[in-house]
């Protein structure tokens, strides 16, 4: 089945220790998104790739970076995680800006 896969599902890191979350898709969609979702809140868009073009949201902290080495994979790098970065991180894909297909998410804990 075509799908969006996120690894790992649960990630624990230490304060200030860099962490990378990964996302892959078999849908062959040209757009990939990263969202941050805190408890009982709506997903907050961090950035997205439209094909190879990187689009950063204005309020996304510099601490967050992303890489998309090819169509299928996208990574979220958090350079120095703080306690406030603990959240669920959701990857999504779409064909153009049509409806988005979400992965199951990675829950990040910062100790």
């Amino acid at each position: 089945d075509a799908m969006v896969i996120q690894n790992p599902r649960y990630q624990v890191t230490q304060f200030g220790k860099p962490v990378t979350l990964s996302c892959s898709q078999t849908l062959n969609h040209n757009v990939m998104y990263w969202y941050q979702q805190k408890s009982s809140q709506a997903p907050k868009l961090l950035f997205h790739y439209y094909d190879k073009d990187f689009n950063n949201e204005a309020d996304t902290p510099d601490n967050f970076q992303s890489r998309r080495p090819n169509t299928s994979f996208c990574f979220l790098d958090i350079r120095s995680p703080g306690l406030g970065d603990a959240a669920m991180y959701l990857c999504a894909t779409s064909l153009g800006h049509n409806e988005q297909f979400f992965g199951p998410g990675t829950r990040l804990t910062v100790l």
Partner: protein
Amino acid sequence: AQSVTQLDSQVPVFEEAPVELRCNYSSSVSVYLFWYVQYPNQGLQLLLKYLSGSTLVKGINGFEAEFNKSQTSFHLRKPSVHISDTAEYFCAVRRGRDDKIIFGKGTRLHILP
């Protein structure tokens, strides 16, 4: 600028009773509308979407929504809820084909036995 308002943060409803989750949007141009469901510790799943055509849209799991342009609303309904419908529901709007999706704050649906 476009925005999405979900007035109810939580909605309790008895099992087998009907439910309506409210969503209003603001936009000066035509929009595309979506409802997503999020079960605990999972990603979002598309329930239904309105792009054009019939204003009554049917989705998965027995849900439907009606696009009302004059009231700028896209309320979600189900005639009889089940315990498995317990989840967070997000309304979302996209202004045009090349625009991003904006999510509402979500409504938590509690099914009471």
